[in-house]
């Protein structure tokens, strides 16, 4: 920590008060949403909370999130939102029109090339929210995800789809 401050003496004041600018913005937004009505007093309170909370918890988050492409991150959220709707219809169809014995449930292993913990968490969460798959475990070295498929006739195709659709995009967001 000491070495970190010596290398950047000019930004240290800003870094001390705003260790996580993105988290501060998120907290202010969250506070405003929680109030459910706009007022200047509420905004001031939100900013105070945003600064105080990030400052108090900054020791728990030594690094800033490694997101490099925010535009792509928002595009990714829209894609996942759409896939969640498709996933709902798909799983509802399976529940209603397929008997338990006819489901081809299986485990698949998804090799993960992402390295940052944040990126792997987002990938695992996305896999759980999207069609017929729940991520259940991570290999001890963090390089493979264990995924349970509700109905997967072809394991290879399911793995390839997860990697192409989500992991490739996440690799651009978290380089």
């Amino acid at each position, binding site marked *: 920590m000491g070495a970190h401050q010596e290398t950047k003496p000019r930004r240290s004041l800003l870094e001390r008060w705003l260790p996580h600018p993105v988290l501060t913005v998120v907290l202010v937004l969250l506070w405003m949403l929680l109030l459910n009505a706009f007022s200047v007093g509420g905004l001031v309170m939100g900013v105070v909370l945003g600064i105080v909370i990030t400052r108090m918890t900054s020791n728990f988050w030594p690094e800033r999130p490694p997101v490099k492409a925010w535009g792509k991150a928002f595009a990714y959220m829209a894609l996942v939102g759409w896939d969640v709707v498709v996933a709902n219809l798909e799983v509802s169809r399976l529940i209603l029109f397929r008997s338990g014995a006819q489901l081809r449930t299986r485990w698949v292993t998804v090799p993960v090339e992402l390295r940052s913990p944040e990126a792997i968490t987002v990938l695992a969460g996305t896999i759980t929210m999207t069609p017929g798959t729940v991520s259940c475990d991570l290999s001890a070295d963090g390089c*493979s995800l264990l995924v349970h498929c509700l109905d997967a006739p072809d394991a290879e195709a399911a793995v390839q789809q997860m990697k192409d659709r989500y992991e490739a995009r996440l690799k651009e967001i978290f380089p």
Partner: protein
Amino acid sequence: MEFILELVVSVLIVLGGLFALIGSFGMVKLPDLLTRLHAPTKATTLGVGGALIASMVFFAGLEGRLSIHEVLITAFLFLTAPISAHFIAKAHLHEHPELCEDLPETGRALGWSTFERLPDNDEPEEEDPRRASHH
């Protein structure tokens, strides 16, 4: 105009209720815990989503004030659903160690983290450099 808005709100509520019902029906119908896990993580998100959109349309269109609590509820739902599903799955694996044989290979030198942990002293280069400095 008011009739159309009321129609939209009712359709959304009925759709949401239908999906919630299907999700709950899946809990009864599907054969074991792991397949049942699929029903609440997915089929119900649209159920809750329908009710939340209906609520936003109702307050914006009929009551004339903007309600954005619903966005917050959606965000928290999307954050918590995968995490709780992951924990339930992991707890299930812990409770049934015999499932370990059914699991596919990791394709790596080490097994799944539920059953195997990192060796204590091997591979120091794999470890987080920030944590390593504390040793």
